[in-house]
């Protein structure tokens, strides 16, 4: 079932073309991640979907409802954790949850949410004295207090240490298990790869690519990177490089003293030939690896930009 449909969104701010043309659909129960370099139009897109600003043209349908006609109904069905964790700093975690719960016709119990975001122990602490990770978890708790159909998480782990980040991943995976639909933006590739069902890469206000993480990686060139380093030093590396130069399955080679890097669409074949040569000449190989392609490579390949610019 399609829960969110975004069609031909466009938003200009004067000369700035924040969003040019963005369309996608999200199925119920999916974790859908939007990634893109800074200024790509992620936040503007998200804010249009969340009803904070109207698009210049294009349409947004959430569970069959649209912002123009069903604003208050949509607001009861979505939960939002904005980039800045905006909370009542002088209220306790529990008081924040209780207050937000009173805004909605349907609500989860405060105790249940506190348990899910792992703040039961700190429920009587004022937000002011919570750690960054705890505040962020509370913000996620507020986004789920109304038991929403769609949850928007805008960079939920930015600025957190690895442990705090993992805690938030656990919450997201738990939500996913409960069948919630999650729209996520993130700066961390590992996060997108680990959590998402589908990833949408946005750059310069348009969708560049949209697929499962595995399929996106598969779309990249099939050349794989093979690295090896020689125990017997630069001389052995140079001779091996010389000997393998004419091999068809090897597209390109680079050498840096005793380390050799080669690219091949058939890495197994290339390795077979390579190790055959070293064995024949008695060269000892210290280290061999075939690098895994990651979403980061996909990102760089599609946008031409380093991930964190």
């Amino acid at each position, binding site marked *: 079932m399609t829960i969110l449909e975004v069609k031909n969104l466009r938003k200009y701010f004067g000369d700035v073309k924040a969003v040019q043309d963005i369309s996608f659909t999200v199925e119920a129960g999916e974790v859908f991640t939007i990634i893109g370099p800074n200024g790509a139009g992620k936040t*503007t897109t998200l804010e249009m979907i969340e009803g*904070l600003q109207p698009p210049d043209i294009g349409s947004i349908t959430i569970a069959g409802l649209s912002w123009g006609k069903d604003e208050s109904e949509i*607001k009861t069905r979505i939960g*939002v954790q*904005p980039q800045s964790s*905006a909370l009542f700093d002088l209220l306790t975690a529990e008081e924040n949850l209780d207050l*937000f719960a*009173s*805004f909605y016709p349907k609500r989860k119990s405060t105790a249940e949410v506190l348990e899910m975001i792992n703040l039961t122990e700190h429920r009587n602490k004022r937000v002011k004295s919570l750690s960054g990770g705890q505040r962020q978890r509370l913000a996620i708790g507020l986004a789920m207090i109304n038991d929403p159909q769609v949850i928007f998480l805008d960079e939920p782990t930015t600025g957190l240490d690895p442990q705090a980040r993992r805690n938030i991943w656990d919450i997201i995976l738990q939500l996913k298990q409960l069948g919630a639909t999650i729209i996520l933006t993130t700066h961390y590739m590992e996060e997108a790869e680990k959590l998402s069902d589908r990833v949408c890469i946005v750059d310069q206000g348009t969708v560049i690519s949209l697929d499962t993480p595995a399929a996106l990686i598969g779309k990249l060139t099939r050349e794989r990177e093979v690295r090896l380093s020689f125990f017997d030093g630069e001389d052995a590396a140079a001779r091996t490089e010389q000997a393998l130069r004419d091999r068809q399955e090897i597209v390109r080679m680079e050498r840096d003293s005793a380390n050799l890097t080669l690219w091949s669409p058939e890495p197994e074949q290339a390795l077979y030939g390579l190790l055959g040569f070293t064995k024949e000449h008695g060269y000892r190989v210290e280290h061999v690896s075939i690098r895994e392609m990651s979403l980061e490579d996909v990102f760089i390949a599609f946008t031409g930009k380093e991930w964190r610019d």
Partner: protein
Amino acid sequence: MNAGTQLKKLFIAQLKTMFREKAVWFWNLFFPVILMVLFMVIFGGGGDGGDFKAKVALVKPTSSTASDSLEAGLRKIPVFEWKSEQAVDSDQADSWVKGKDVDAAIVLPENGNGGDIRLIVNAENESNATTQAIRGILDRYVQEASFAAAGIEPAYRLQTSSVSSGSKDISSAEFLLTGMISLSIAQAGLFGMVDMVEIRRSGLLKRLRMTPMRMGLYGLGGMMVRFVLSFVQIVLLTVIGVFGFGANLNLNLPVLIIAFFIGVLAFNALGYLISSFSKSLESYMGVANITSFLMMFISGVFFATSTLPDWLKPVTRVLPLTYFVEGMRDGMVYGSGLFNAAFWSGIGILTLWGAAAFSLGALIYRKAKVEVR
């Protein structure tokens, strides 16, 4: 959830937020109390106003019946505090005056029967208030003594009494008390809306707009909290003014409630206006400080506006604080009833200020919301 429950939750949440903020306690309760106590102590808010004393010395060159009776008469004047029980010689008196051990020395006539009574003061103090007062008192005394000596009953005498629009005279204690109450409430309104800047800066405003809660309820809950704060201010300051400084109140509750209600609304509207165009806490505080500082001294909070220079008076007739202070005094000390044209015109001007500030603020907010990015 229904609007009533939501309003209750929003009211309680904002009430907790306000009273958990230490700065609110300091600036809205502790600071006005300190300021009022200081001013009352400085301006002698004891209420009787009869604390004036002048320290004098007497020089009696010769002893005679006439000079003895002059001395006896002088010693009965209550504001004179005598440096010595016995008259001293003129050298001793001179040195006391020079050393400022006394405010003045009174020298009786040389020949004991008639002639000049001289007053010696330190040249540095020649024109100060104490000298003027001593001179006035002595002048009056000498005149009466002369009439008595000549056996004349004066045809005219001056009787002094003061007139106020209310049933009682108001002393500096009541004046300062009502001034401080009005100032504190006005300040709470002007500065309190800084929350609006803060929730906009932190993104909380945006976050709240994403919920189905109506922002009007949030604003209403906030206003109720501000009324609670102002109520606490008025009660606290009144208790201290009445029990600590003997202020006499002449309450007219309907008048007081109207002035209080309109005043709280008007000054919160001004704060709201400031918040609408302030991008940061600093700029909000800057504007609020200038506004409150400008009004504080020329709106009749600490001294009556009639003591201000003439060119400044038209300004005070425009400022909202002037009318708020007057309205609060109408309700708390003058005891003037509801049928009082000056009160209603003041309330009218205050209402205009509030309505104009609120409309302009709302307009700026609406425009900003359209431009929000």
